[in-house]
């Protein structure tokens, strides 16, 4: 029941994006929209007859696709050239390792690869936060849709990191117990935060912050 609710909850940010954000020029939001669609279909497949028989294939493919989408999100969001280069280099290495390990894709869930993808995303979230902190402009980055998206990703990564580390050690029964418990609630929280981000985008577009025109106090004689 809760799992079904979690699956349906991913429709909320998708519909909010379609309603309010289709005209956005923030590429990061489009990437998140795409990520939500992929997650939704992946979860749906997992519950299908084929998905139940090929759970490991689906999980492993989902891990690499998820990593690709989220690293693209950070590539588009972070403007630092060095960080962008680092994303490209790390992602290339990551994909090469994935291809090397592809033989075991249907045998077991690749916990190590998943752990590394989570750690990279966690690192990128931290880079995003610290670059936001070091900005000297008066822009309130806390109240930006991208900031909420990164918070959602950070919470998602933080909650599932330990689960992914020990995923290989879990039996099917334990997997049901822990996986269901953690990921379902985590999905709910993440989807709510994504929805909040899209709503915030809508709110900000409707109520833009007025530009601060500095008053010219120089005397007319001095101008």
């Amino acid at each position, binding site marked *: 029941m809760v799992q079904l609710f979690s699956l349906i909850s991913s429709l909320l940010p998708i519909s909010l994006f379609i309603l309010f954000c289709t005209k956005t020029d923030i590429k990061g939001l489009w990437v998140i929209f795409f990520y939500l669609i992929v997650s939704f279909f992946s979860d749906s497949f997992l519950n299908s007859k084929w998905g139940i028989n090929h759970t490991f294939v689906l999980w492993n493919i989902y891990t690499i696709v998820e990593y690709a989408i989220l690293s693209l999100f950070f590539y588009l969001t972070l403007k630092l050239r060095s960080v962008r280069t680092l994303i490209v280099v790390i992602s290339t290495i990551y994909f090469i390792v994935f291809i090397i390990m592809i033989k075991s894709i249907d045998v077991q869930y690749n916990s190590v690869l998943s752990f590394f993808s989570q750690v990279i995303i966690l690192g990128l979230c931290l880079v995003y936060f610290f670059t936001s902190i070091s900005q000297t402009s008066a822009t309130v980055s806390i109240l930006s849709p991208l900031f909420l998206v990164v918070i959602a990703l950070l919470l998602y990564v933080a909650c599932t990191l330990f689960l992914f580390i020990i995923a290989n050690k879990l039996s099917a029964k334990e997997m049901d117990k822990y996986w269901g418990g953690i990921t379902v609630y985590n999905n709910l929280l993440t989807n709510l935060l994504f929805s909040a981000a899209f709503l915030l985008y809508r709110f900000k577009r409707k109520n833009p912050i007025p530009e601060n025109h500095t008053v010219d106090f120089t*005397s007319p004689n001095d101008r």
Partner: protein
Amino acid sequence: MVLLQALSSDNNISMVLFFGTIGMLALTIGLIVFISFHQRKVIRYQQQLQRMEQDQQKTLLNASIRLQEEERQRIAADLHDDAGPLLATARLYLNENFVNLDKQTQLQSIYNAKQIIDDTIQLIRNISHSLMPPTLKNFGLESAVNDLFQKISGSGSMNASSRFHDYRERLKAENELIIFRVIQELINNILKHSNASFIHLTQNTSGQRFFIRLHHDGRGLTQTDFEKLGKSNVGLGLKNIQSRLKVLQGKIFFEKDMSQTYYKVTIEMNREDDLKPVNESN
């Protein structure tokens, strides 16, 4: 790896998973809270800075308006108290011609009226010169400053000298006027408050930077005094200097010189986009 080895029993798995996830969650929430507080603090600080800057600008504007009003009142007083009675007297002399038909008396009254009109012309010329010195307009900053210093020296109250080392190309007329007004204000302050026996002005350039330095041996200001006065309600003239230099994006520094004997005032501005060929200015 150590962690994976430790996961030997169900209980251990549950413990690691529970504490690991809770720990990560706590760290994440802590981080988010820290960032939110930090951002708020930064925004508050920026707003405070903006407020201070606006207050400073308001003070400068008020000083500038007050000075304009004082200048207008001075001109109005000059015209009303000096030119007005002179012209009224001249009118009286001329009116006498209608009443008194004696030719000798008429000639005398016309002569008196002419004298008074000449005085009035001189008075109006003085007022006009104080508004815009003709030397500055026609011959530039160097001549106007030299002229001003000669007048001060000529009065015998103080030894004043000036030397322009590198002023082959004139600044824009409006910028010359601003610098001249600043120099006038500084000289005025030195004459009024410092009890100095000499003032020496030098002009120099260094790359695109244009410098004017004033030395005197009286009581002077340091940069701290200047900044204090700039923030207080007194020191109208200094605020006027500040607002004028702001137009030029120039700076002013008040300090004691190396020997700690003389006070030094340095005006510094950028000469870029400000150069005007001599031919054009004449």
